């Protein structure tokens, strides 16, 4: 077996181990690599920054599940910190059944950290299934879709929801989703009602959303853990997003090296085989 064939025959479990070590090491030896903010993230940050304090609220639709938590929860935490720091009221809801507990957890944790009061500074509407029907219904009357908040309090009895009827009273909606919910907000909130929509999505989905961003249907876009890291840099509070970037960078370099080596091994082995067949003939 020549060197190229040996390279191709390496047990993949060694590669898994190398990747694991490469992810773990930066937690103990952080590199502090810089995170450069890109325009899509900056635009979303600016959109939140333009919301008036103690006035019409930001609607944050936390539509992710545990499977996409590492990428999307840092976004939720960063956006909530940004909003609460500026005394922007926040209404949180979810269109995903598994998002109920996650949305509540992120909201209550940041609200407690920032000294916010339920009902005055923020509220949690809970979960409603039906995605498109929910989004369309809220464009007509929020109270018909969410007659009560997640804890059974009628919306009319929540101080910050007083006078809030539909999207005319909401300056910005941000959907954090690992599935098609973020697209649904574009289709059913932006298109019929002209509602300003921003999105935070997993990196896998991010490329599908750039057309909406460049056509102006999204005001801004966060893509994956990198997007969360950039937002953390903007709000000057570094957390899990930035913490993961060192590991992310090392792994990307490692994968590039592995791809190059794999191609060298593949073409080298093929060339060696052809030479041997020619000699044998």
């Amino acid at each position, binding site marked *: 077996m020549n060197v190229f064939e040996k390279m191709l025959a390496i047990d993949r479990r060694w590669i898994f181990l190398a990747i694991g070590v490469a*992810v773990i090491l930066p*937690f103990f030896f952080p590199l502090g690599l810089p995170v450069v903010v890109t325009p899509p993230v900056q635009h979303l940050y600016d959109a939140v920054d333009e919301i008036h304090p103690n006035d019409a609220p930001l609607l944050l639709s936390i539509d992710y599940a545990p499977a996409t938590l590492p*990428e999307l929860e840092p976004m939720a935490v960063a956006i909530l910190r940004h909003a609460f720091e500026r005394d922007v009221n926040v209404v949180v809801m979810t269109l995903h*059944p598994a998002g109920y507990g996650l949305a509540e957890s992120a909201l209550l944790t940041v609200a407690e950290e920032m000294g916010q009061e339920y009902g005055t500074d923020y509220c949690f509407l*809970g979960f*409603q299934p039906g995605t498109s029907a929910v989004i369309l219904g809220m464009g007509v009357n929020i109270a018909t879709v969410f007659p009560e908040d997640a804890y059974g309090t009628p919306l009319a009895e929540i101080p910050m929801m007083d006078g809030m009827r539909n999207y005319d009273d909401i300056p910005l909606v941000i959907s954090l989703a690992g599935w098609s919910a973020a697209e649904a907000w574009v289709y059913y909130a932006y*298109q019929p009602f002209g509602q300003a929509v921003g999105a935070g999505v997993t990196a896998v989905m991010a490329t599908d959303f750039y057309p909406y961003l460049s056509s102006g249907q999204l005001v801004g876009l966060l893509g994956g853990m990198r997007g969360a890291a950039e937002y953390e840099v903007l709000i000057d509070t570094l957390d899990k997003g930035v913490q993961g970037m060192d590991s992310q960078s090392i792994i990307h370099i490692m994968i590039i090296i592995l791809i190059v080596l794999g191609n060298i091994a593949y073409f080298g082995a093929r060339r060696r085989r052809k030479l041997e067949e020619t000699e044998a003939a």
Partner: protein
Amino acid sequence: MGTLIWTTIGAILTLSVYSFLYKDNPFYKFAEHLVVGISAGYYLVIYYYNFIDPNVVTPVFQLRLGDQAIGFGSGAWWLALIPGLLGLLLYTRFFPRVAWVARWSLGIYVGGYAGLGISPVMQARVIEQIGANALPLTSVTNVLIVVGLLGTLAYFFFSMKHKGILGALARVGIVFLMVGFGASFGYTVMSRISLLIGRVSFLLHDWLQVV
């Protein structure tokens, strides 16, 4: 103490799932089955208490819509009962002799959502994109966008043979498609590694508390 127990259980399940990277084993199978079962139970409870109870059970049987009382046989009562019955009819699919009844509910469901979606999706995915790509060729970026768009569209035009100008444009389109796929793959790698980073962060920070 309670948090430590649940965190430890989460860590053991995380390591059980990752043990599959070495080889398939009973610990992985147990964790996999556990997540399926718990997810099903959790979703059932969430759907029932957040949707079925306030929108169907309470109006129909308790004659209440939120805080407001509704009359038996009123418009609101029928609006709660009929969709609820249609939803129940979906379960007739499990009984071969009456399975055809489910088609009525499915038809209303599919037809309704398709009708809701046609116009906004068409607007968002086609009309707005055409407008956004009608760009003046005054910058390198705009030229690249227009050439890439035309090349990609040419590649997927199969009504004529790809030769001559169409063939050249299609070959340009292939290059842009490959660049797009590469970017998508790079994002996919980033996404998968992010999930691993999240789990490692949980193990080192939340469980072992060494970082």
